[in-house]
């Protein structure tokens, strides 16, 4: 399938998207350890702003949504509403063991066991909590996915991968 050549403005927008992803963090029931690791990312030791990664308060300004923790039944509708406000193309990182499988809370009465029942997840960041460099790796994996999606003209080419999880380690880190 031949895709039409991109206009200059579209190439400029794509370049800016890859160079400076804006992320928003949503705590859907975490114990705050994941949130503290994200704060550690922003602090001078890691300082993800030097790579152009900005944490924004509003989902309407964001490209990447980081979900920390398992999704409780009460937060499920709120998380869905936040996800729906993010403009396309949007990417979702489920953070920590709780994001992958509800962790120690798996099977409890107030938990959605899978984040994917609420919003589609692109990258899982492993760890309890993930270290700041693993969070950065997850964001960069999202950017590599974004580049591939731009080349393929959408997210549809990844549909056959549904069921298999895309791990952050599968992608080569090109920026750091």
């Amino acid at each position: 399938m031949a895709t039409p050549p991109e206009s200059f403005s579209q190439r400029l927008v794509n370049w800016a998207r890859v160079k400076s992803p804006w992320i928003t963090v949503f705590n859907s029931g975490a114990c705050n350890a994941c949130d503290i690791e994200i704060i550690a990312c922003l602090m001078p030791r890691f300082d993800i702003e030097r790579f152009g990664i900005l944490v924004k308060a509003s989902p309407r300004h964001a490209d990447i949504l980081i979900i920390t923790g398992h999704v409780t039944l009460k937060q499920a509708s709120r998380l869905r509403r936040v996800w729906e406000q993010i403009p396309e193309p949007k990417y979702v990182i489920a953070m920590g063991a709780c994001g992958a499988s509800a962790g120690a809370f798996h099977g409890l009465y107030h938990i959605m066991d899978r984040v994917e029942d609420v919003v589609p997840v692109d990258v899982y960041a492993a760890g309890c909590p993930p270290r700041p460099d693993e969070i950065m790796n997850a964001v960069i994996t999202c950017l590599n996915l974004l580049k591939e999606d731009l080349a393929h003209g959408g997210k549809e080419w990844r549909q056959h991968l549904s069921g298999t999880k895309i791990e952050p380690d599968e992608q080569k880190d090109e920026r750091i």
Partner: protein
Amino acid sequence: MTSPLALDFVMEKMKEYGTVEQVRQNRIRITTTPGNVFNAIKDVLGPIGCDRLVTISTVDNGTTFGLIYNFIGPHRTVVSVAIEIPRENPEVMSMSGLLPPAGIYERQIHDLFGIVFLGHPGLKRIILNEDWPPDEFPLRKDWKKNPDTNYGGVKEGWS
């Protein structure tokens, strides 16, 4: 700094409400009945000198529900007022008029145990999701998750 409460002092003031015992150092427990609990807590806040509600703990004993109101004050002694209410008719008087912070704890207990606090100004859901089935109380010992019940949270057509 004031000295810790003496057991004899509390026993003299509270003996009309029930048994008073020193559970361990700096912890005094008053076991009373649901009918007396309002006046007992009034006295704990008055002559005993407690000024702060720490928490209301609830326990499912199988046949009864135990409610324990824990108070603390400048004397640094935790004073607990314990009552037991029957499981068939779980109703007890609300403390929210006497102690406004108790209202939030009572909403949470009502949510998770189904205990009705009479006279509470707004006994609504506080912690479970809004579409949780109204007659299920997840922290009761005999509660089991029913696979046929929709517990809310996620809607058809998502993802």
